């Protein structure tokens, strides 16, 4: 049971905020077969456990968009008040999110944005395009002295929006610059695949100035390939996400020059937002009595200079 938010997608007028009643909060993310998603899910679970007023139900087994939609529909059968969803793909999960909103279940959209503004109550997310862009800008600056800078891109899984946006942001940032991307191959967010692809790219390119990778986990494999080839002094590399391992590597100095935050902690925030929305509450540090519609997190560039500041958020 619990309060049912009135209207389309909850968020009643302020003043009725009551955190004493128990609310049922759903949570769904794609199957946790990767470190970042693992952190997202455990972050959400830990956050939910902190609140006595939350009955938490989650479904994280979807290995594609349709399966996740199925899981969410099953979740929705359990008298939810609100749900936080990190979709496999924003557009593909929009119909089910819309369905939930229409049924009066408030949807908090994490990360990959739904294609309709009425399909979610609040969106909180990182900035995939921003990651690509920040990486591009970072490398532009680092490689500014070179006449022609040779850069390699190791992508995520081909065919999903995350990969797509991280490539698009990067390409837009470096367009018309001195940077030439000589190889662009998917590493499937997987250290082994990243390593293998990089091993061959190292063969085909006698000189490389920098490697832009889409993911910190995967970057570890890429770094290892470069190290195995004894060429770690020749180039720099950037990751993405902000894993603890990456932070440590950045701190050590060396090839791992930067990463760009895409912190899974956002899922914990989303659970909390769902709780507040279900209660009809606002965010305590804001003057508004309601939760805002959009919360965009910055794809902060973490380098050796500022890594101390962000280390604690590493996952």
């Amino acid at each position: 049971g619990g309060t049912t938010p009135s209207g389309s997608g909850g968020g009643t007028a302020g003043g009725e905020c009551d955190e004493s009643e128990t609310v049922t909060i759903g949570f769904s993310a794609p199957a946790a077969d990767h470190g970042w998603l693992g952190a997202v899910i455990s972050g959400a679970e830990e956050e939910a456990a902190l609140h006595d007023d939350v009955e938490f139900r989650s479904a994280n087994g979807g290995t594609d968009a349709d399966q996740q939609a199925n899981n969410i529909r099953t979740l929705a059968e359990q008298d939810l008040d609100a749900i936080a969803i990190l979709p496999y793909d924003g557009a593909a999960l929009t119909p089910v999110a819309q369905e939930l909103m229409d049924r009066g279940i408030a949807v908090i959209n994490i990360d990959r944005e739904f294609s309709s503004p009425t399909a979610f109550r609040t969106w909180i997310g990182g900035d995939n395009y921003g990651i690509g862009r920040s990486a591009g800008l970072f490398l532009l600056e680092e490689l500014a002295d070179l006449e022609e800078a040779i850069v390699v891109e190791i992508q995520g899984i081909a065919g999903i929006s995350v990969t797509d946006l991280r490539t698009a942001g990067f390409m837009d940032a470096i367009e018309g610059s001195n940077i030439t991307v000589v190889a662009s191959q998917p590493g499937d967010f997987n250290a082994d695949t990243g390593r293998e692809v990089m091993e061959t790219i190292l063969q085909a390119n006698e000189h490389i100035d920098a490697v832009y990778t889409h993911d910190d986990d995967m970057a570890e494999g890429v770094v290892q390939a470069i190290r195995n080839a004894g060429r770690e002094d020749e180039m720099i590399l950037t990751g993405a996400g902000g894993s603890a391992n990456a932070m440590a590597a950045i701190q050590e100095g060396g090839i791992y020059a930067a990463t760009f935050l895409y912190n899974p902690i956002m899922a914990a925030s989303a659970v909390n937002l769902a709780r507040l929305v279900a209660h009809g509450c606002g965010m305590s540090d804001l003057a508004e009595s309601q939760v805002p519609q959009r919360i965009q997190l910055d794809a902060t560039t973490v380098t050796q200079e500022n890594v101390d500041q962000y280390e604690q958020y590493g996952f």
Partner: protein
Amino acid sequence: MTTATPESSRIRDWLRFVAANWRSYGLPIALLVIILIGTLTSRFFLVDTTEGGINIRWGNIVNILVQASVIGILAVGMTYVILTAGIDLSVGSVIALAGVAAATFGDFGAVVMVIVGVLTGLAVGVANGLLVTWGRVVPFIATLAMLTIARGLALTITGASPVRITDEAYIAIGAGQLFGVLPYVVIIFAAIVALGWFGLNRTVFGRQIYAVGGNRVAARLSGIPVRRTEFAVYAISGLCAGIAAVLVSARTATAQPSAGTGSELDAIAAVVVGGVSLFGGRGSLIGTLYGVLILTMITNIFVLQNISYDAQLIIKGAIILAAVMLQRRADQEE
């Protein structure tokens, strides 16, 4: 020579009967056990008795049927293929390719989109059929290659990004409901199962499929067009995958080049759990239906019970093994 006492022989007869007929009841029993577990562990599964009285959870029942539809439709086609002792690994990729193809024709209206999607599935099926019959490539490898190729094509067509679908009529195929109750998706699924059953059990073609799977040489020597039959089952499997692709893309209002990854294994698992022999010639569509429902309900219960993904994988693997072993026991001595 020893003769048993009447008493012990009666018990032995009874045990023999149970043993001999276990196979026919194994699947319903397995399904019942799962339904029981689901009902006992979650009040959201089928019936809710917590608030006094019996409160049937129609929402979740329809939900289970919807969820069964995609794998179910794939499994119908897969049953045809496996009954001829073949296998179709390409259906997962077809979900992607056919969905993407349909979405590409988004400006031409729902009818054209559906036709394009279904025909794309059929086309891949036809390619598989040609490879297996005319090309004499073993089905595992022919359809494995098509799995790769179809996924590649889906990525090429979309430039690796998901394609949004905006056609309302098309989306309604996935979201709409007859009388506001029964989703079209479920109706389509039911129709395909009915058609599939009729085809296998009542038509000459269906019996030819069993003959080809049961004894290829005998089928050929009886004048059965073995190649044509084989070709047809791959075409049918492709067609089913094309239909499934339309449903998936309609429901998600998006065509994704990564859709359906691994669905072929789910479909095969459902068919085999349903008692169809991978060596061909043996099994039924009713069995497949049981297999589909068992696997779908398990997933449904997983979600209701908030079971983590890793545990889901482990339990699912164990259940598949248990289901298959239950059926093999009775089969053992043949």
